């Protein structure tokens, strides 16, 4: 999401005797809070270790740390590339590269996701920027949905996570592209511009390129990293606490299996660069159900819904998210039936 500058204060006019109180001063100073938190944890090391000594907690923490250590390098890679594109590629380039006819622009923008790597957290602001630069919203939405699912980093991660099922990579690419294009065309038919909130001004204007680049990296790592922690906690809980029999029961019925993993993808909100590894560990489930997990996850989950609401407005997100979810499930099942 864009970090916008505060409007310059007018202190020298003398009209207002009381300047507005600085919001930073009223809140607890965060470096201080961070230091206190660190000290507290170091002081209470003994009791904390004792509480974490139970096998459940140890196993939970191992999986939690493992998901993060494994996902962070991919997140950092994606964030670096997306910052480079956001800063060094002029936005007008995208407008020039796309066909004028909106119906044609949708699949082209969807395919463009292949060469514009980034995790889903990065693609929301990029799609917002595309809309601001005059790209037809349908094409921007197709890009928004396809980019996090089909870029090289994600496809490589999928291939690494499914060494025995290379067809999974192709199925993911095909299903994700189909959903992205279908949603784009659906917007062309049914979408109304008044549903779209005009997105906030781009953050990186008026800064040096270096500052903009590192600012984008910092913001994306902190933001996406925080959500990654949420996903890792959920994944660890699923692995260490939820009895295997639940998952096995859900996995036994093919219909429930697909719906269960679609719901899981929405709730877990894992970064698309890491979700393949979680899917690979859900060995009880059919490949089709796991494909649904991989197609739904990058397109719609709790954190994406929050980000879309912030960037495009609530009216848009409330209509767009359920439609995407339903379409993603249907297309995944069909693709799974044909290819897996």
């Amino acid at each position, binding site marked *: 999401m864009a*970090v916008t*500058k*505060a409007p310059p*204060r007018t202190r020298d006019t003398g009209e207002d005797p009381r300047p507005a109180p600085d*919001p*930073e001063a009223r809140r607890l*100073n*965060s*470096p201080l*809070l*961070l230091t206190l938190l660190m000290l507290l*944890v*170091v002081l209470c*090391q003994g009791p*904390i*270790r004792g509480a*974490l000594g139970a*096998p459940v907690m*140890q*196993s939970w*923490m*191992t*999986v*939690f*740390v*493992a*998901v*993060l*250590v*494994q996902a*962070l*390098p991919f997140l*950092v*890679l994606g964030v*670096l590339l997306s910052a480079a594109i956001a800063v060094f590629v002029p936005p007008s380039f995208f407008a020039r590269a796309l066909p004028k006819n909106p119906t044609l622009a949708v699949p082209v923008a969807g395919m463009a996701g292949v060469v514009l790597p980034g995790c889903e957290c990065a693609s929301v602001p990029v799609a917002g920027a595309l809309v601001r630069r005059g790209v037809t919203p349908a094409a921007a939405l197709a890009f928004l949905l396809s980019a996090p699912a089909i870029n090289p980093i994600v496809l490589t991660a999928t291939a690494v996570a499914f*060494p025995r099922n290379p067809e999974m990579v192709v199925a993911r690419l095909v299903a994700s592209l189909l959903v992205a294009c279908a949603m784009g065309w659906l917007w062309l038919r049914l979408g109304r511009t008044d549903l779209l909130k005009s997105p906030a001004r781009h953050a990186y204007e008026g800064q040096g390129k*270096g500052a903009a680049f*590192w600012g984008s990296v*910092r*913001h994306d*790592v*902190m*933001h996406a*990293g*925080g*959500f990654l*922690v*949420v996903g*890792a*906690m959920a*994944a660890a809980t699923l*692995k*260490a606490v939820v*009895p*295997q029999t639940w998952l096995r029961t859900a996995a036994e019925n093919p219909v429930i299996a697909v719906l269960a993993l679609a719901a899981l993808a929405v709730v877990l909100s894992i970064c698309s660069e890491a979700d393949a*590894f*979680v899917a*690979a*560990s859900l*060995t009880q489930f059919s490949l089709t159900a796991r494909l649904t997990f991989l197609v739904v996850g990058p397109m719609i989950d709790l954190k994406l819904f929050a980000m879309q609401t912030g960037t495009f407005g609530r009216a848009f997100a409330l209509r767009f998210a359920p439609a995407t979810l339903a379409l993603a499930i249907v297309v995944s099942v069909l693709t799974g039936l044909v290819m897996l």
Partner: protein
Amino acid sequence: MNRQAQSAVLFVLGAALLHAGLTDLYLRYVKAGLRPLVLAAGVVLIATALATAWYEWRARAKEQEHAHREPRVSWLLVLPLFALILVAPPALGSYSAMRTGTALQQSYGYAKLPQSGPLRLGLADYAGRAVYEHGRGLEGRQIVITGFVALDHSGAPYLVRMALNCCAADAQPVKVGLTGQIPPVLKPDGWLQVTGTYTAKRTKDTVNGGPIPYLEITQAKPVPTPRDPYDETWNN
């Protein structure tokens, strides 16, 4: 969280990744092949932290005041720091192993065994040969395998190795039952090197019904945890 705090979190997170990658700590969580990526991510995070601090300092020097509204969710990044630096949880052990069904899979082929001397086999290699090759070439040979101890509900001992595809989230156990001269006291999660002979005895895993072969052991000696606690042969 303001930019100074973000810079601090990024720096410590990068340092923690570097520390994990430069020691063998990372092998508890991810496969060995991810090491260069883990190290590179650590370097980038530290660079980001330094750049953030530098631009923030310059902005302050120029007295440009920003109203930074940063997402609260960033505070969660503090959790893995504590987990990785203060606790450094151990590799997955008997608790996970007994909750998960054995993941023994048929291999495409098995390498030729040496003609003489004790056979030092990987635990999953032995289990695969015992179950799918019915112990061909193993009869009458002394077999040495290494793994950690896990006890089921009835207290029956198994020797287990967790097999890994990518990270500990996808780790799955391969189990071998122990019979014969079992040591009187077995501590779960303790690593053992056992010497024994092939037996046709089998059982089914209570979790997923997978096959578990047995080893008739003659000798068991405690060994330290290996450098890489996971079996990564599945990675190819």
